[in-house]
């Protein structure tokens, strides 16, 4: 019931941080990795965001596509790596494509433009990289910072969907037209592919279809492996070795998305181990404590101001604004608490008065999250 976040991550081999954009997923991932490295484990954090400030906080110039070791004055090891989509895709093609299609794929114009910008390719690359790191057995823990997406399932589904798309009968029909010639039960397709191609060509231009067919037939040589690894990743993520952490900020809309992530990831299957809510206004007075005569406050101000009363008024106004934020944050958190079963911890971090840009800031966040855990 009162499982601490520290205990949760201590037992895992894979921790995946999911959540909407701009909620501090990358920072949270780094903080979790730091915590486990401090405990003596060999940890790698795989990030999507090229956040320079966070790289600097880890003592790195910037994040790169290869694993870099972070200097720590402690027992464990901390490595950091950024997901380089293009490199990741090229690597897959280099590694798995048969000799005769390798160059054809790498040089295909559709591949060049779309390997990094197709919907879901970022998720696919993340999943591929995760598989690689896990299989290498080099790390005790992999912390993965996922692409910002409002569709939590994208990450899990990406390998699947890419495989499905390419395996779909419709696409095979384009690059293996003979397979379907004259088959029954395929609606317009039975009329002969040339008719459909003619209509589609009207829409897209025949040239685009041709390029696409070349791309597909070359890329199809990769599909078996692609699907196999996708399946392995899904299996890995459904075992006790892995957990998902939903990261959010206390804004009501963002929390709504966080709850949505929880549902989509499989509320019943214990997939989500915890929520981490960043930037909670957890300081200052409540609004009702601020309804006091200004004179008391101005009398307490030691400094000489041209107009003490006006300063006192501003201080009260400012405190009231933050009291409003505090009450908004906590009522939104309570609402989330009401929707999530009690055994899933909802841990929160205070809104810091400065950004995390050095080791000290990162340690402060680590302390707040693990040693001084606060939850709703």
């Amino acid at each position, binding site marked *: 019931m009162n499982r601490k976040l520290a205990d949760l991550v201590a037992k895992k081999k894979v921790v995946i941080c999911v959540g909407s*954009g*701009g909620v501090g997923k990358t920072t949270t991932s780094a903080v979790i990795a730091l915590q486990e490295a401090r405990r003596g484990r060999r940890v790698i954090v795989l990030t999507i965001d090229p956040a320079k400030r966070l790289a600097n906080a880890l003592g790195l110039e910037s994040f790169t596509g290869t694993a870099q070791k972070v200097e720590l004055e402690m027992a464990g090891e901390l490595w950091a790596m950024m997901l380089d989509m293009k490199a990741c895709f090229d690597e897959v093609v280099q590694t798995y494509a048969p000799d005769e299609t390798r160059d054809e794929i790498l040089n295909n114009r559709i591949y060049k433009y779309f390997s990094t910008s197709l919907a879901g390719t970022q998720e696919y690359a993340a999943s591929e990289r995760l598989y690689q790191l896990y299989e290498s057995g080099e790390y005790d823990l992999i912390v993965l910072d996922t692409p910002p997406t409002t569709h939590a399932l994208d990450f899990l589904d990406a390998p699947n969907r890419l495989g499905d798309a390419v395996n*779909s009968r419709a696409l095979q029909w384009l690059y293996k037209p003979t397979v379907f010639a004259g088959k029954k039960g395929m609606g317009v397709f039975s009329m002969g592919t040339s008719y459909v191609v003619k209509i589609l*060509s009207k829409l897209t231009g025949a040239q685009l279809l041709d390029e696409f067919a070349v791309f597909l037939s070359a890329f199809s040589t990769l599909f078996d492996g692609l699907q196999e690894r996708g399946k392995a990743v899904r299996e890995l993520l459904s075992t006790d070795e892995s957990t998902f952490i939903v990261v959010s900020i206390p804004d009501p809309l963002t929390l709504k998305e966080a709850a949505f992530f929880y549902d989509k990831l499989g509320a019943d299957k214990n997939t989500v181990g915890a929520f981490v809510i960043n930037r909670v206004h957890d300081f200052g007075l409540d609004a009702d404590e601020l309804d006091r005569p200004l004179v008391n406050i101005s009398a*307490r101000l030691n400094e000489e101001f041209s107009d003490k009363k006006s300063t006192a008024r501003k201080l009260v106004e400012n405190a009231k604004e933050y009291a409003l934020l505090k009450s908004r944050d906590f009522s939104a958190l309570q609402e989330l608490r009401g929707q999530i079963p009690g055994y899933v911890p909802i841990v929160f971090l205070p809104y810091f*008065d400065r950004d995390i840009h050095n080791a000290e800031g990162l340690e402060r966040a680590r302390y707040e999250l693990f040693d001084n855990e606060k939850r709703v």
Partner: protein
Amino acid sequence: MVFYVLRNGAHLNLYEKRLVLFSGKGGVGKTTIATAFAMSCAQRGMKTLLMQINAKDRIGEIFDRNPIGEELVELGPNLFCVNSTPASALREYALMTLKIKIIYRAVFENKIVQSFLNAIPGISELVLLGKAYYHAAVEKKGGELKWDIVVVDAPATGHGIFLLKIPSVVTSIIDSGHMFEEAERMKELLEDSNMTSINIVTLLEDLPINESQMLLESLGELNISVDYIFMNRVLENPFSADEGNILEGDSAKADSITDSLLLAARFRKSRLDLQNKYLDLLKEKIKRRRISIPYFFEGVNNQGQLEDISQRMQKQLSSDEQ
């Protein structure tokens, strides 16, 4: 009077454009800014279409309407809103291209063809952008263009870039056919700074600024210029310079009311200092005119607040107008 001159010698007036797009990092308030801008257009008497691109609709909620979908919804005088999905845009595009409904039905309502179309990379973006193009430059009513201005709440940076890039990608892959011609026309519109305006919404925080810079550079490569940077949620400073000294120092634990007040004030001061640092960074990295929209402690969730933002925006924009 400040008189801004653009590279091409024309002065900048967003209200003279036909197509005005807003992009930026996810979560910076693009929808708020785009909606407020559309409201200011409508208020000036322009027939305005606010177009959402495959969005989880929030505008409907703010305006006390049902969620906005593919059907045009009137939000107020001169102000209309639509939320385009790839499926609806593709359907409209196919119908317009093929002209014959029966062929459309036979071919496009076939499940296999549908899944095939969904798998063609970039087609969603192309038809969505094509829809914006259609509203901004083609759609007529009584012999005149139907809309005076089309305001697009564009997807966040990554997808936003891809959306604006797609015409160039298409024209570089193919060199003939319907889609090629469409892409050519869209490219022309996007590159025409008299017609089109791209604006970036950001917060005064490092990641949104980095992404803004990235967006600016990617658009530059596409020969698309960026007009304004809209800085959203800018924290105001209520304290005067001589009050500054009580705000110095670390936020100590508060044990009296006054200390609590000082703690809250110091917190704000720290955030303000940080904000100034990021404003300097923004000024250094992105040399564009800036519009500043204040932070609302109560959150932005109703029409009145949007009205307020819309007016502040209009005031700042029209000082550039003359």
